[in-house]
Every structure is written in C-alpha cells, then in structure tokens.
C-alpha cells in the first residue's frame, strides 16, 4: 500500500498494461518525451521507448483514426485527447467509426481501444477547456464510458478498459490529478460496469461521478453532522455499462435519490438514471428524485463564476436538506 496521486496513477495504470501485453501502445500530443501536459504520463517513454509511446502531431482525427486502424488489426492502443473538449474536432471517430464498425460489419470488425482524455472544470480555462462531456459519449450505442474518482480506480479501471474488447472512453478529471489516495501494491484490475458505495447511509442516496464524488462525500459528512441526515454516496464510476443494480438497491434502502452532475443540465447522465429509477423503483421513492447539476451554460473563466457554476458541497447540502424537510 502506498499513497499515490491521481496523475501518477494514470502512468502506473498504463505501465501495468504495457508491461503485461506488448500489443498495448500509447500515443497522443506531448505524451511521450514531455510526459503529458498534465504530467500524467511521465516516465512511460523512458520505460517503453519510442516505438510504443509516441508523440503525435496536433491531429486529433489522425490520432483517433490511427488508434482504430491499429485496434481493428490486432493492437490494443491507448490514445490521448488532451482536453475532452477536443473530442468535438474528432467526434466522427467517437460517434460514427469506433462504435458502429462492429455492428455494420455484422461482427467482422473489432475496435478494442481506449481514449483517455482530460475532462472537467476547476482550472479557470474557460468554456473550451473545462467541460464535462461524459454525456456526449454516454449517448452513443457501442461505446463504453468510465470516469474514475480515485487513484486506485484510475489504475483498476484503466486495466479493465485496456483489456475490454470494446472501445472505451476514459474520462480523467483534471481537477483530480493532484489528489492523493491509498493504492495497493501489485496488479490492480477492476471491472467495467460496477458502481461503488463509497459511504453507506440510510436516509438518502447521492449518486456522483469523478470530481463530484469527493464533493458528495464532504456534503454527506455535513448533512450528518449538521442535520442528522445519513446519506449513502455511490460513485457511479462507469456510465456504460451502467450498474443499475447497485443504484436501484441503494434507492430501495434509502427511498430518496439525488444525482450530483458536473455536466450541464440537459441530457446529463443523471437524467437517464432518474428515468430508470422512476420507471423501475417509483414505489420505493418517498419523494421526487433531485438532480444537482451545472446550469445549462458554457463555463466561465473567472474563478468566482466557475466556482458557483459547478455543484459544491454546500449546494449539495442545501439542496438535500431542503428536499428532506
């Protein structure tokens, strides 16, 4: 067991898989010799060499297209798109190519690859370098979508993503790179499609993802201490596949549901989960499900504006407390 940052966990997760499987290669912009603009891939070039760890031109379509071509002919590529906002300039691969090749070819083509990308707000970068776009990927049949919140989960879910036979979009949260967590020694392999109850509770279920998980945990502590409300916090971790059993099980115990989403409100991931719960667990609920989200706005650069755009622990406390009265 050792304490590791989320950023170092990225490099360790990739290294674990590259050591295991020579078919795993990794490329992106500034990822090899510079070690990544977020310093999340430091050391990989030195450890595995320039054939397996490559710096690419600023060509997001070429990066994702090449990952697909390598994947369909036998490799297991990991490609980095520096900021998730940039998925928009190569969205053809995300929306039309990766997820449809197997279906259109009646199972002849495969696409086992991982796209890692820096997601989310908190760096005061403004509207085009701060978005949470996991819901862009969630809506596309054929993709798998994960977003870890801890260093341990970064490694475990990276291993699961690399070993998965389908295309996986792997959202790393930029504001979590500096956070630390305990990580066990040795190989860590998680499974896609498993949510995790990170704080048991009996009065309400709070679902959160990535940066919203520590905020939901902080809110739960406050709700307990200040209002005596005992919240269960579930780290959703994987949007596709979605672990609805863990979510429905939690709602069946607590009878209340809150989602905490960094994505803008319309068609955020919580909307789908609320609809599932309304459909399948309506009579378990003692009150209306509540979504706590970023408003339907582009993100501002100024710190005081960005800070009030995202759900905060205080906003979660206020909203849960108001609903539970």
């Amino acid at each position, binding site marked *: 067991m050792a304490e590791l940052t989320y950023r170092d966990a990225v490099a360790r997760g990739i290294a674990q898989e590259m050591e295991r499987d020579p078919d795993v*290669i990794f490329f992106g912009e500034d990822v090899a010799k510079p070690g990544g603009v977020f310093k999340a891939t430091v050391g990989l070039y030195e450890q595995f060499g320039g*054939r*397996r760890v*490559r710096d*690419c*031109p600023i*060509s997001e*379509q*070429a*990066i*994702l*297209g*090449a*990952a*697909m*071509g*390598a*994947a*369909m*002919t*036998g*490799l297991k*590529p990991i490609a980095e798109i520096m900021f998730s906002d940039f998925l928009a300039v190569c969205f*053809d*691969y995300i929306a*039309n*190519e990766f997820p449809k*090749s*197997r*279906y*259109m*070819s*009646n*199972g*002849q*083509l*495969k696409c*086992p690859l991982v796209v890692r990308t820096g997601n989310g707000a908190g760096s005061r970068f403004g509207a085009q370098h701060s978005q949470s776009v996991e819901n862009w990927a969630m809506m596309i*049949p*054929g993709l*798998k979508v994960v977003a870890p919140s801890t260093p341990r989960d970064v490694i475990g879910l990276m291993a699961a993503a690399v070993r*998965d*036979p*389908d295309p996986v979009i792997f959202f790393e949260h930029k504001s979590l790179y500096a956070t630390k967590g305990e990580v066990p020694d040795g190989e860590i392999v998680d499974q896609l*499609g498993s949510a995790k109850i990170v704080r048991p509770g009996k009065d309400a279920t709070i679902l959160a993802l990535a940066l919203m998980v520590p905020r939901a945990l902080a809110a739960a502590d406050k709700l307990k201490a200040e209002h005596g409300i005992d919240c269960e916090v579930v780290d959703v971790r994987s949007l*596709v*596949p*979605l*672990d*609805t*059993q863990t979510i429905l099980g939690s709602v069946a115990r607590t009878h209340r549901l809150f989602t905490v989403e960094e994505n803008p409100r319309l068609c955020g991931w919580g909307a789908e989960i609320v609809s*599932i719960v309304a459909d399948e667990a309506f009579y378990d609920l003692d009150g209306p499900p509540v979504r706590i989200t970023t408003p339907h706005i582009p993100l501002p650069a100024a710190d005081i504006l960005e800070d009030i755009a995202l759900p905060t622990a205080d906003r979660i406390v206020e909203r849960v407390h108001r609903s539970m009265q």
Partner: protein
Amino acid sequence: MAKEPARASNGSRAGINDDIGEKMRLTMYRMQVEIRESEQRAFDLFLQNLVKGTSHLSLGQEAVATGFAAAMKPGDLSFCTYRGHAHTLARGVPIEKVLGELMQRDNGLMRGKGGSMHLTSVEHGVMGSYAIIGAHLPIACGAALRAQYRGDSDVTVCFFGDGTTNIGAFHEALNFAAVWKLPVIFVCENNLYMEYTPIGDVTAVEHPAADRASAYGLERIIVDGNDADAVYRAAITAYDKARGGGGPSLIECMTYRHSGHSRADPAKYRPDGELEKWKERDPIKLYRERLKQFGIADDVIAGIDADVMRRVNEATEACKAAPPPSLDLLTTDVYADGGFAWRN
C-alpha cells in the same frame, strides 16, 4: 520500374512477354468486366426496387480498383469508400455477397446490417467501406502502424475520391503517414466531380491530390486511371516502396464516372459531350483492344464476357431467392459480447 523475372514470365507466351503478361491481363480483364456487369446489374435491380437505399457506382472507374487489387498480395488490406463495390469485388468477394447486401438480404456480406456504403469482408482484406468523407485515411494509417510495429509485411491501400482531398482528415493522415513512414498507399480516384460540383471549381490546385503531395514530402504521381496496366504498374511500384520501408505513396488516378454521384443524381451538370468523350476511353473498351494487341483471340474474350454474365445472373437469382435478414440481427454485435446490453 524494375521488372521481376518471376512476374514478367508469369503466364506469358511468345509475343506478349512484357512485364504484365497474358495471365495477369486476362485476370484484370475479367475483374473489370465483373465489376462493370455487377454494378450494371445493381442499377437494373434498383430500377426494379430490389436494391434499397442508395448506392454509388464505379461505372467507368473499374481500372483503378482492378489495377491495385491485381497487384496486391494476400494479406494486404483495402480501405474503401461508400463507392466501394468495385474495390470489394476486386478482392475476390463473391458477387452474390455484394448484390445480397445491396438488396438487404440475409445472404449479403453483412446480412443487410451495413448496406451498400459499408461493404466489409475481413477474410478478403476488405477492412470496411467508409461513408464519412476522409474518415478512413487515418484508420488506414493505424493499420499500417500495426504492420510497422509488428514487422508484418502487409501493405494497406486506402481509396478515396477527389472530393476527399479538401477535408482535414486527408491532410492529417498524409502528414501522419509521412512522419512515421507508414506502409500505406493513398489512392485518389479523380473522377472530376466531388459530388455534383466539378472538383476544379472548389480546389486551389489543378490536381487535387498530386499537387498536394509535395506538402508531405511525397512524389507527385498522376496515373491514367482508365488504363488498368498503368494503374497496375503504379501499384507495384508503391507496394514495393512500402514493403521496403520507404513509406507512403499518394497516387492520383485520372478517371471518370459514367453515372451520377449516387442513385439520386442524373448528372445533368455535365457539359455536353463530356461523357461521350470519356466513354471513348472506357477502361473496358481500352483493355479489350489491349488484349487484342497482345494476340488474345476474340473467342477467349467472348468466353470471359459470357462467363461473367452467367455468374452475375446466377448471383442475381440467388439474391432474389434469399430471405430478408432475421429480426434478431437488430440488436446483435453492438458490443463484443454479441449483444447490446448497456446495463445490468
């Protein structure tokens, strides 16, 4: 071009012992006729409402697909566009499989799940037909990157139209392939029209592919795309370069489509006389004359024509008799487990 003795003597006989040889010429003639007759049949079936959706024919462009496919080795990979019937047939995919897919029957290449624009046959090296302009050039780079990384000897060939040269992915892929010296051949079929608009009206240079080659440190190569022999020779040169570690090639093949862009297009935008002028240079007509020049008897040519027609007719009847796809295919192969489950 350096001539390999084995290739030069392959099937040759006295009087036609050039670099291509009789056996290969007969193969390329048959291939062009098969493509022509299969696509003509597809058009006829469309008029009978038996081919659904859209389709984009290569009538008049058969020599490009033929020359490149004939020069390929087993294991080489083809990436095609939505105008990909020709390239798919040229790799040896049975006519029935192609027509069946166009007719959206269960005997189709993808059992009706892909349709005309997405013909794929991995066992024949046809790694998909891509209907988003330019998308497959980077994908072809990835296939070539795998070959380079593993030391595999296969070459990846990526076909596209003149219109593709004005989309970003073309330029990203050319640079990517050149920087890493990937074993990939980019083949531009310049049929003079991007869709309905003349390519010259919307492109800054005369030759949309070849005139951009120097930007990526590549040779400017323009080939008569209606002459299968010329295409074949250019292909051999590019394959040898790629297999020898010399990196990518960009080849612009000048050709012309006899039909419109797609089924919906009667191609009324063409100047009077243009189609007629190009039909005088019909690749199949040219090649028939070539065969005669090299002493191939008329009855041999007629025999190939008759055999192809028989096979197209048999394929047509088999497709007409084939059932539609079974309904369970709706939700198969979304994910690698064979199904479409997104939750537990």
